[in-house]
């Protein structure tokens, strides 16, 4: 596979020309944070960043998405009959995405694209995307990707991996899609000294992640014993049920379906939803299997760290991005809860 080195100026110039074949998305400075946005008009990406506050899952799986549209005009022959809303599935490139967020796509793919059912919108959006990752030279203090099957320069799922070498980027194509992307960028082939520098960078970065989050015992725990563990009330004590964790999480996939009507036209829309909210599981009868706050907090952690582990036998439903740790208003830390669960006897 191709390895190419180019200056940061060359990369910026290349992005301008890449707007033609691709719908480009990248991290843009947005107030105090960074947000993945379409790089159209004069929007300039900023690759000197830690990670975006909102995960880039929103590009593949928008917060709100039209599913179907329909007419409620009785004079229309097809009144009340749902039709698929048009979508743009032209090639898109997400540049500068962090390897943890790419790992997250691999994790949620098992839900949206399973042997029995394929979610058409998630699958089509995902297949239209080229993932041009940027390795992390300086992981955040809350990062723990290496503990959950990833790493700051983890290559799985990426089409291209970029190494920030100061004035230059080293780009490694990892798939055919990635090769095609790199072909459109000028650059020189990388010599051994550059490859060695990249390898050193990767190793020094991995060493910066010091969190220890053991997950090895989760699989062998008995589900109902872990479910009935005595620590859930305490874990949930400070929780506000604000839903920030699930909203920012790149591996949270739950959604609601709602109809919205304007005049005689309507849409069926899906919106991100959250297990933190009582309405999420409220029955029409008024009964709610997760009426208590601690039950909802338990659901979030049990889903990510036990149910997912058992269902897919492919690790935990967490990519170690640390967003929920950084932005939880009451400092609930999934790393500590994971340790409680893993050590529970």
């Amino acid at each position: 596979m191709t390895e190419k080195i180019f200056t940061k100026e060359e990369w910026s110039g290349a992005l301008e020309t890449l707007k033609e074949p691709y719908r480009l998305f990248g991290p843009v400075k947005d107030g105090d944070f960074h947000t993945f946005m379409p790089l159209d008009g004069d929007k300039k990406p900023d690759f000197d960043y830690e990670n975006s506050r909102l995960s880039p899952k929103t590009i593949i799986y928008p917060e709100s998405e039209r599913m179907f549209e329909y007419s409620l005009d009785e004079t229309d022959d097809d009144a009340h009959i749902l039709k698929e809303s048009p979508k743009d599935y032209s090639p898109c490139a997400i540049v500068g995405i962090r390897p943890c967020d790419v790992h997250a796509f691999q994790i949620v793919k098992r839900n949206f694209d399973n042997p029995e059912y394929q979610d058409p919108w998630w699958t089509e959006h995902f297949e239209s995307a080229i993932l041009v990752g940027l390795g992390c030279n300086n992981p955040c203090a809350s990062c723990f990707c290496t503990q959950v099957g990833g790493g700051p320069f983890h290559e799985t799922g990426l089409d291209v991996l970029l190494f920030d070498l100061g004035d230059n980027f080293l780009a490694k194509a990892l798939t055919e899609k990635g090769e095609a992307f790199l072909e459109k960028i000028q650059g020189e082939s990388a010599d051994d000294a550059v490859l060695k520098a990249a390898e050193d960078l990767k190793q020094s970065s991995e060493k910066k992640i010091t969190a220890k989050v053991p997950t090895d015992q989760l699989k062998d725990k008995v589900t109902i014993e872990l479910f009935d563990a005595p620590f859930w009330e305490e874990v949930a004590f400070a929780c506000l049920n604000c839903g920030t964790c699930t909203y920012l999480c790149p591996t949270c996939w739950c959604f609601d379906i709602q109809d919205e009507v304007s005049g005689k036209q309507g849409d069926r829309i899906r919106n991100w939803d959250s297990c933190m909210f009582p309405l999420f599981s409220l029955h029409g009868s008024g009964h709610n299997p997760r009426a208590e706050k601690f039950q909802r907090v338990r659901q979030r952690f049990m889903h990510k760290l036990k149910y997912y582990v058992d269902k897919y036998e492919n690790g935990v439903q967490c990519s170690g991005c640390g967003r929920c740790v950084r932005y939880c208003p009451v400092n609930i830390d999934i790393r500590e809860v994971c340790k409680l669960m893993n050590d529970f006897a």
Partner: protein
Amino acid sequence: MRNKEGVQLKNPYLPYPVRIDRIVTETEDKSLKTFRFVFLDPDDEEKFAYTPGQFAELSIAGKGEIPIGIASSPTERGFVAFTVNKVGLVTSHLHNMKEGDIMGIRGPLGNWYPWDEMEGKHVVIVGGGFAFTTLRSSIIYMLDSENRPKFADISVVYGARSPGMLLYKDELAEWEQRDDINMHITVDSTDDPDWKYNVGFVPTITEQKITSAENAIAIVCGPPIMIKFTQPVLEKLGFSPNRIILSLEMRMKCGIGICGRCNIGDQYVCKDGPVFPLAQLKTMPGEY
């Protein structure tokens, strides 16, 4: 979207268009109505091939979808039927719709009662209130002349609050007359002097009328309180937990195990259920 052979697959969220063919008000308080639907495209009826115990999402443009058990039997052709309790936004709107109106149904969804396992066995059906719908489907299915020989004795305990709250009254009366099904209809209470069936709660009547668990399998569907008190009765009769089959309800949206809300542990009630043997439920969190 396409499968690996390049064949176009249906969008699993897209309902089949249907026309409301018939509406029957079932109960004296008018809170339960049975809706018969006919597919606008006759081919869709073939695609909607279902098995008793499954459910579907009823879809009303502008209002939304609701998951409802299928009350008709696959042995009944030309329509599918659902009995709907008036509870929320979608069901209230549906109750105000009229014959001829166009809406949608999406499915069939979920698993079904263990028909292969039930062959050659006595079947005990225990139902309460408006959860009798997929049990009606099952009874019609078993009483079909082609299917009846596959099963030994069929016993039914079905209860409602009062005589006026029983579903499918004409069919209940018809089944009472047959000698290939043992009916035990009951009401919680009644002041009707002409009431000729049982008075008492479902668990009590089950204890009185069902005498043996030998070579039998029990299908239980009803409100949580009924299930809670029927379960020990059946276990006392000798039904092992893998011979007690329950059908659960849960708030649902997608119906295909993707949207995430109806889980009990790692099982989705919409896709892995709604039918679970008690033996399996005992290994799952009691979060339902």
